[in-house]
């Protein structure tokens, strides 16, 4: 009896039953969200256009053609204060790329060394690596930048008392001066020789691999490749009559003359990003190597493979699979952290953009340019790394 009362029969459904259908409910939820979002965007857009009208700011990207009127400290392409805002942003973009690439290379080298060091059986090396990681991982990167900028580089001596470094380099509180290579006519042949050497090395190692697969004979790949890469450009260098010379910085009475100089802004940003990111890369490398099961190297030893070869042929390829995805995100983090340049005045994308923003008040346009550029960098890096990762990934059947 009581069951009949509570069970709804098929004929007289309760009025709200259509709302209990998860599909219809989902549609309603989404419609409400969309409606709220559209209303919110409309409200923001109305406010913005009204605010812009009141502040007398024309929206649009036309301002990029205006005269910049400010100088940048360091530029890879020709730039003067008469150049346009657009060109200033391009200068900033190249500076971002420059510090990011330099930082990524150094951070990778330090990170791999420290990460392998933490796994070393040598107690001292392992402990030193651990201290390095724990110190740099737990300090804000901005602080490390200031450490180099106002703690170390700013208290270096004046240019007239520059500290001499090996290879004719000098360091002072205006930056690092190093010999500038001067390419005379004929140096393009050296570049050509280098390209030929690279192509030749790739072809030779492919041929050697094929030969090994067929006959079991291993050719001396390493020595041939080294010989090609170093010997061929060197030979061309002498054959074309030594077309590359160096403009060496000379310590004068008051200043250094000649050579190229990188400013303390770039140096401190580069050093800080490298040291900071290296501590994360070290942990990734350690986790990657420890992630390869011990059975793998034991099996290699049981087959009679020598320890060096075991590392190179068995452990490293498998560890790389674990290392690459998080390594990618560290590279992206480094690129994004390079925006901290604004704190010390290195003219990167954010720094030049900030200056333009202050001059013109085009906040929306500048921020949108930042977002588009950084998103493009992020997405393209992750695309490349995903492709690389797919190539390296375990092929499972």
């Amino acid at each position, binding site marked *: 009896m009581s069951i009949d009362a509570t069970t709804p029969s098929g004929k007289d459904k309760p009025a709200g039953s259509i709302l209990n259908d998860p599909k219809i409910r*989902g549609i309603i*939820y*989404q419609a409400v*969200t*969309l409606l709220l*979002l559209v209303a919110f965007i409309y409200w*923001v857009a109305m*406010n*913005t256009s*009204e*605010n*812009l009208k*009141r502040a007398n700011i024309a929206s649009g990207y036309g301002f990029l053609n205006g005269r910049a009127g400010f100088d940048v400290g360091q530029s890879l392409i020709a730039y003067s204060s008469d150049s346009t805002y657009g060109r200033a942003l391009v200068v900033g973009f190249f500076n971002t790329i420059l510090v990011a690439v330099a930082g990524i290379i150094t951070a990778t080298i330090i990170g791999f060394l420290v990460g392998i060091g933490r796994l*070393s*059986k*040598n*107690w*001292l*090396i392992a402990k*030193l690596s651990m201290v390095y990681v*724990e*110190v740099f*991982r*737990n*300090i*804000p*990167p*901005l*602080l490390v930048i*200031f*450490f180099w900028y*106002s*703690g*170390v580089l*700013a*208290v270096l001596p004046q240019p007239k008392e520059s500290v001499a470094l090996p290879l004719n380099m000098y360091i002072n509180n205006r930056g690092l001066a190093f010999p500038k290579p001067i390419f005379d006519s004929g140096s393009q042949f050296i570049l050509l020789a280098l390209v030929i050497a690279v192509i030749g090395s790739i072809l030779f190692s492919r041929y050697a691999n094929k030969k090994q697969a067929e006959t079991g004979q291993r050719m001396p790949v390493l020595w041939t490749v080294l010989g090609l890469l170093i010997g061929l450009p060197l030979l061309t260098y002498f054959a074309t009559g030594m077309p590359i010379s160096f403009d060496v910085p000379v310590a004068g009475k008051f200043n250094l003359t000649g050579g190229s100089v990188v400013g303390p802004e770039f140096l401190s940003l580069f050093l800080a990003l490298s040291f900071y990111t290296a501590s994360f890369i070290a942990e990734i490398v350690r986790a990657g190597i420890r992630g390869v099961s011990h059975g793998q190297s034991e099996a290699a030893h049981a087959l009679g493979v020598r320890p060096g070869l075991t590392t190179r042929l068995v452990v490293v390829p498998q560890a790389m699979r674990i290392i690459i995805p998080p390594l990618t995100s560290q590279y992206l983090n480094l690129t*994004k*952290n390079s*925006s*901290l340049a*604004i*704190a010390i005045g290195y003219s990167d994308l*954010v720094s030049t953009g*900030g200056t333009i*923003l202050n001059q013109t008040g085009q*906040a*929306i346009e500048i*921020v949108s340019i*930042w*977002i588009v550029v*950084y*998103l493009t960098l*992020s*997405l393209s890096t992750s695309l490349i790394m995903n492709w690389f990762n797919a190539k390296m990934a375990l092929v499972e059947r």
Partner: protein
Amino acid sequence: MNTHQTNFVRTSMLEQSTPPVLDKGYIAWIRKNLLATPLDAVLTIIALLALAWLLPPAIKWLFIDASWTGGGRGVCATAAQGGSQPEGWSGACWAFVGAKFDVFMFGRYPIDERWRPMLVGILFVALLVPILIPKLPYKGLNAILLFGVLPIVSFFILIGGVLGLPYVETPLWGGLMVTLILSFVGIAVSLPLGIILALGRRSTMPVIRLLCTFFIEIVRGIPLITVLFMASVMLPLFLPQGMTVDKFLRAVIGVSLFASAYMAEVVRGGLQAIPKGQAEGADSLGLSYWQKMRLIVLPQALKLVIPGIVNTFIGLFKDTSLVSIIGMFDLLGIVRQNFSDANWASPVTPLSGLVFAGFVFWLFCFGMSRYSGFMERRLDKGHKR
């Protein structure tokens, strides 16, 4: 019948002989850990040389040559720089840190009112410590007090204007106090928001999923400094005339939104690791979506990603230092501001201040990572494969 006697079996135990000299004590330890192979020996020597080159000057600079007391820049500058130290002297200027300690902690908060941030600090510690010790009871009540009641009470204590407390505007706030407030609010907001975003990204409703994915990917693709710029220069454009948001609040919003996108990805990793059977089991028991998530899926998922969550917290804590770029004075900002104090400016002041700030940041971050390791071991119920 007498028992068979085997003469070649020893009936008494031998005296234990001492191990070879080279295999015991510190000699064995050194041989095993420092000089195992020729390469190891070379590495050890290089490391020792590097230590001998780095450590004594560092200790000398930090402690022996440091000037610990004094009322002005004189104690931290050489005679040529207008101070009392001998020519060629260089050492840490802890006198500067000591004299500015209160400023580093509270910024320009009025001196007579500094008991207020201290009181908030005491309340915070009193509520935080019991929630960190797993054995203590009333975790739910504790969490409500810490994350719900404390922020509201602290806000009114700090800003004043009620109960006869003088009003202290936020631009006067500064120092470690601002760093801690920013990170605490950021943590308290980013975890729930991140969970919601992660659930949204795995939702079956395409509109919700798309919106959450968009938000997460865009925020993760851009640097925090652009988000802070957006919060400081674009937010005023978006609001109607006359409506302003406090600069401090803008920074809090920026930092929290930024961290929640990262948190969402961490939580999503945990959600993906939970087998589908768990959610299906909850469905078959007739639990609603929120009951299923709250009671079945999230407790397992969050436990899996504790290291990732704490890493995000540590990242957030470090990232709060960026607000100094948009003109707020957190710990790093206030330390840098005081470099230019004419009373203390000397070549060693910046480095001393930065070493101090770095040490404070390091202490908090290192503490967090240690605690996360402890929780990870405690919560590990042996389900690991």
